[in-house]
């Protein structure tokens, strides 16, 4: 009995951390830059395909493919930001929605064209397959890895944005553009870097997701709803909020499915609706 509770908590936490990795980039761009990027999962898809291609075709080890996926996501978003996105920072929310959905549509077709419609899989190293024994129970090695990786990402992000000079500049630039410009901060550059960071985080999330939930051209839309849920429940722009929301959603979803399977499909939405009615700005949101 106790064993199954721990098991459900662990599995739920790992699932939540997967959602966190996929959504933290959006929390950065939407929360800090106030840009509605519905093509966020397309950047995750870029990272996913990069990782699959590098490990499968180019023979890279899995761990080396992860930073490469981050770079691929960041690189693609950087190019798009310079060419297109930056012209829309002042556009209305609705135009941003339409534009980014257009980008997502194009990414779906492009992925189908270049990689085919087939479901992709990724080769993970031996030590990430199977289970690890601890406290008399067995835990999935990959899930454990996911949890560690996302906590590391969260810590790194919080440190970079809140403890470094660079982070202070970025926050100043996105909080109050005019004031930041007056202080001699290059706002344009700060936006560019923030956006690339969001894209890179998405790419990393996409690469880590493949082994658990697969990858096909539909990825750009399949997980968009979950990602939006995490960001909204966590509160805009709050890394800690996203982490807490993802953990809460993952665990409640898993526990709900285990104890009340007939509620399975409803749970994640019920939790979201309940939380947002209680705290419309999200768990850690300011607005």
């Amino acid at each position, binding site marked *: 009995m106790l064993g199954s509770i721990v098991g*459900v908590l662990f*599995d739920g936490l790992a699932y939540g951390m997967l959602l966190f990795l996929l959504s933290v980039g959006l929390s950065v761009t939407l929360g800090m830059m106030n840009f509605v990027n519905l093509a966020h999962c397309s950047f995750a898809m870029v990272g996913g395909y990069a990782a699959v291609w590098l490990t499968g075709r180019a023979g890279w080890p899995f761990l080396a493919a992860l930073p490469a996926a981050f770079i691929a996501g960041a690189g693609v978003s950087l190019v798009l930001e310079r060419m297109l996105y930056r012209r829309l920072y002042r556009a209305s929310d609705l135009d941003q929605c339409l534009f980014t959905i257009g980008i997502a549509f194009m990414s779906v*077709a492009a992925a*189908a064209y270049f990689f085919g419609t087939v479901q992709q899989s990724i080769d993970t190293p031996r030590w990430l397959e199977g289970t690890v024994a601890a406290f008399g129970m067995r835990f*999935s090695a990959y899930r454990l890895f996911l949890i560690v990786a996302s906590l590391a990402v969260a810590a790194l992000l919080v440190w970079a944005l809140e403890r470094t000079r660079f982070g202070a500049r970025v926050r100043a630039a996105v909080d109050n553009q005019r004031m930041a410009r007056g202080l001699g901060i290059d706002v344009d550059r700060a936006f560019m870097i923030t956006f690339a960071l969001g894209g890179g985080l998405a790419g990393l999330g996409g690469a880590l997701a493949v082994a658990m939930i697969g990858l096909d051209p539909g990825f750009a839309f399949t997980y968009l709803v979950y990602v939006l849920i995490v960001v909204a429940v966590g509160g805009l722009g709050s890394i800690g909020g996203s982490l807490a929301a993802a953990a809460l959603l993952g665990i409640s979803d898993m526990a709900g499915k*285990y104890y009340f*399977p007939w509620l*399975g499909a409803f749970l994640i939405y019920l939790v979201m609706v309940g939380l947002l009615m209680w705290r419309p700005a999200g768990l850690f949101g300011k607005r």
Partner: protein
Amino acid sequence: MKKLAVALTVAALYAGQAAAQTVKIGIILPYTGQFADGAKQMDDAIKLYVQQHGESVAGKKLEFVRKDTGGIAPAVAKRLAQELVVREQVDILAGFLLTPNAMAAGDVSAEAKKFMVVMNAATSIITTKSPYMARTSLTTPQLNESLGAWAVKKGGLHKVYTMVSDYGPGHDAEQAFQNGFKSAGGEVIGSVRFPPNNPDFAAFVQRAKDQNPEGIFVFVPGGAQPAALGKALAERGIDARKTKVMGQLELASEEARKAMGDTALGIITSAHYDDNLDSARNREFVKAYNGLAGRNPNFFAVGGYDGMHLIYEALKKTGGKTDGQALVDAAKGMKWESPRGPIAIDPETRDIVQTVYIQRVEKVGGELKNVVVDKVENVKDPVKARMKK
């Protein structure tokens, strides 16, 4: 036989004057969206058949019009079928991966009296929607009821747990397997249904494990889910070689086996086709398909390939005459050797009669393959067989 003779005479009379004309075939498939890969598999097989057998049949040139439904969208499928009939003036409707779409287009086939070939959609009742419809794929009960009976009689299982996706096809599969299993004397000790778009199966697998069953029956849609489920089974310590894991063929598809790795070993599936089936006919098909598509064919492909065969042979029989009644009459009772083995179109239900293979994932020459361990021949759709009684 008499009908056939008449049809042949009539056809022969018409053959001369119709020679210069074309036969138009409208193909409706979900080329985009969640089911795009199945559509691609099938479409490549259709192209392969045309490549191998020429673009004209019975003196008529074939012309294809392809339409995308973008996923489950019966209202769109119906409109596309209508447009194909009234605007493109197609003679035959074909394709149909998804049940709701096939049902909706069935209305158009019935009203416009057009021959319609369902090349995948697997719910039993589809073929009752139009008297001009035939199916060259499978029905969900056909595969799963056979598997249920086999699990008791040959598999030696008495207590199983079932877990299926909570939607139409999942319910059909659950019911069919339980029917087969119980009527052979087995006991279902528990069951669970999970949401159709479920990304993580750990919780459900844990529930199944709590019951300590001898075997677990699973139904999940294709795509990413079989692998996710297989991994969850392995992580919870369920070894398919000890606790038997059974399901419909998607569970051990090529992509799923690749993603699961060695945890796939021992999974038992019921299938009407697998690229590893050992026959000269199949080896030749797999080779040709690889030449065109650059990958192995799966059951979507064979449904499309046999569907084209049915269309070609029916047209030959009618001498190129395209009226729905003539074509469906020609299709009824047709038998041929498919890459999957001997198959036939049941003259009463216009549904497929075929061999159901029971296969197990094993390592063959370092690769994970489905190996046939048993087969049940001449299986009809059990639901329609019961409806008749």
